[in-house]
């Protein structure tokens, strides 16, 4: 009898405790002892609006199927604004998301500023050996892992096969050929050959690598943008624009580029896998076979495109760390990556996903995989994310004739030396 009362009391007490746990899923608390995740995970996605974002939103919200007590709040932040917006919110301690889709170059910077939670030993990292080495490289900072690779990418030439046929030209393999091909396209069809973004210096990188240059030489702590190779690269892009082989814009470059290419007003653009879904939406590419993709043109010293991509990082100030770790793991799992790759032709970061049949058969992924394998890695130093702001100003100035390639390169180099103390 007595034992019976004690047991009842124990059960009742447990019941109260459990109820208390269950009742606290207001978002401020994460998982409790019971092991079930609860609360809200806010995710800032930066994918292309109008095509990629719909797929990502749906996949993200499917997270609740496995964890019904977790609410996923999907927010699309335009890629160009996300870095600053996150830094603002993270520093002030309010309004920052739990999980952010961080561009590879941002990750070491955010980690250095103390904004990211280290992920080693958490639920966020599973089957780490499966990740491509280049993709994982950007997630490490000072011996710790601060993010999970989500997608990897690089750049190539997107071309309009119909226009090429009309003009009777082949895909250019070098910058010189590119000029010749553009001239012929202009002569035969009246259209411009290449659209080159003038408001984003990322589009300048493959020309820089092509001339044998780079932004900085991290192992030797040397600034190399103002080396002769860097100056030459500035001359190459300026010549492309001045000679009419390429057109450019100093504002709204992304929209203008996509519109011009999708409407068949330009024959080529340099772009990455993230643009594939949006490009197919254009009337010129209603027949998907009309889109051709080729490696970026080589310069005088070689051929190379930058390695890019995105990681998922967890904000150190998140009130819901456990659910956030689980969300990052879910979004980068092999199943999710396969789904995303199938719908958007984005490149997965896991070796195993490439072996799945519908990923292996995807033409765009099959094209970009070898490009990514050879892509030029950027130095994963905290300042990597800071290197573009000084570059883009001078790049635009060179293209619009406000400064010479020599002066432009020198100004960027001086800016880097101020940023990277003690570098040559």
């Amino acid at each position, binding site marked *: 009898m007595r034992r019976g009362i004690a047991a009842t009391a124990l059960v009742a007490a447990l019941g109260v405790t459990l109820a208390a746990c269950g009742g606290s899923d207001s978002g401020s608390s994460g998982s409790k002892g019971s092991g079930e995740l609860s609360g809200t995970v806010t995710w800032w996605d930066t994918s292309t609006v109008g095509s990629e974002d719909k797929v990502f939103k749906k996949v993200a919200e499917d997270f609740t199927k496995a964890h019904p007590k977790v609410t996923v709040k999907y927010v699309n932040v335009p890629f160009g604004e996300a870095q600053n917006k996150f830094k603002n919110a993270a*520093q002030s301690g309010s309004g920052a998301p739990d999980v952010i889709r961080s561009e590879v170059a941002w990750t070491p910077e955010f980690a250095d500023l*103390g904004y990211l939670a280290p992920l080693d030993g958490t639920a966020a990292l599973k089957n780490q050996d499966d990740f491509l080495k280049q993709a994982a490289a950007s997630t490490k900072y000072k011996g710790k892992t601060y993010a999970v690779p989500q997608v990897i990418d690089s750049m190539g030439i997107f071309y309009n096969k119909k226009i090429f046929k009309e003009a009777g030209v082949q895909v250019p393999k070098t910058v010189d050929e590119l000029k010749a091909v553009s001239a012929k396209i202009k002569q035969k069809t009246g259209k411009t050959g290449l659209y080159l973004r003038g408001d984003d210096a990322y589009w300048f990188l493959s020309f820089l690598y092509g001339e044998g240059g780079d932004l900085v030489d991290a192992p030797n702590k040397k600034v190399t943008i103002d080396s002769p190779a860097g100056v030459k690269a500035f001359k190459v892009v300026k010549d492309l624009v001045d000679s009419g082989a390429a057109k450019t*814009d*100093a*504002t*709204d470059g992304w929209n203008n580029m996509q*519109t011009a290419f999708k409407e068949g007003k330009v024959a080529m653009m340099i772009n990455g896998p993230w643009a594939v879904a949006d490009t197919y939406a254009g009337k010129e590419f209603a027949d998907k076979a009309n889109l051709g993709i080729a490696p970026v043109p080589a310069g005088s010293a070689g051929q190379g495109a930058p390695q890019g991509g995105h990681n998922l990082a967890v904000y150190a100030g998140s009130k819901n760390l456990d659910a956030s770790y689980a969300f990052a793991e879910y979004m980068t799992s092999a199943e999710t990556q396969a789904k995303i790759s199938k719908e958007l032709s984005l490149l997965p970061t896991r070796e195993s996903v490439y072996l799945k049949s519908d990923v292996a058969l995807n033409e765009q992924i099959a094209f970009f995989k070898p490009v990514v394998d050879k892509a030029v890695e950027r130095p994963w130093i905290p300042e990597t994310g800071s290197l573009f*702001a000084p570059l883009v100003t001078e790049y635009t100035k060179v293209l*619009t004739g406000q400064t010479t390639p020599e002066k432009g390169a020198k100004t960027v180099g001086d800016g880097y030396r101020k940023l990277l103390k003690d570098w040559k």
Partner: protein
Amino acid sequence: MAVDTTGQSVAKAAGDHVARGRSRGTGKSRGAAKRSLSTHWYAWAMVAPVTVVIAVIIGYPLVRGIYLSLTDANERNVARSIGVNQIPATYEFVGLDNYTDALTGSQFLGTLGWTIVWTVSCVALTFALGLGLANILNRRIAGRSAYRLLLILPWAVPGFVSVFAWRFLYNQDNGLLNKVLAGGGIDAVPWLNDPTWAKLSVIATNVWLGVPFMMVALLGGLQSIPGELYEAAEMDGANPWQRFRHITMPGLRSVSTTVILLSTIWTFNMFPVIFLLTRGGPGEATQILVTQAYKFSFEVSPRDFAQSSTWGVLILVLLMVFAAFYQRVLRKQGEVW
């Protein structure tokens, strides 16, 4: 006028009070303060919340900004606490170094040059156009209220909406302006992609946004000029230009001095037009002082809070000098504002 009278009476009352206090010969200002508190406690209590709010929302940021401009604070060395990461502040006091850098480097002076060109041309154009339109609308013309309504429209639309609309118009390939020009057989103009065109484009947009304010203010001024003056002048044989020169302009003086001062300060600090239209580009061609200060604080990385505050303080000083100078000039002409 009403304002003047009140001001005088307040001054007189205050003067009386002080005189009485002294005449009693206590000589202790403390006692005076105490008495002032006891007689005027109600007024002090009423004013206190406002004073506190102003101190918090204006005074504190101002003092903080001036302090930051004397340090080398940036994103990497300010204090922050994010979850488990507690990072203490490590920035240092550097005295006037930031000011020396700004005033001896070419960037501040270059940006200041364009800011002055931008301000002077915008204010001059908006004032001239506003005056012209106000004069037309002051006459009895058919459909006057419809015209007034249309001309005030740019002001009624939120600024950022207008600026985005202009951005679409200016688009080199798909913008309406170039399509119209193409219809006339003229080559596309690189509105926002060429430094010179970009400068003209931002000025045009700002003038379009600023004219309604000038027009409404000057129209109000025009309507306060008695019609008899014009009638008398006409009787004396004054031609329209003489009437404009000797009646309209003097009659508008108090309104126009105020709107020119306001418009100068607004245009000098006109952030949205530049930022939303060109982001200061192409390159740095249209960057004015405030957009550059914003860039230091929010766009470059690591964010340079010290430099940004320095530019902010310099902007404040420049505008205060301008306002003081302007006031002195007006006072010489017998104007009070």
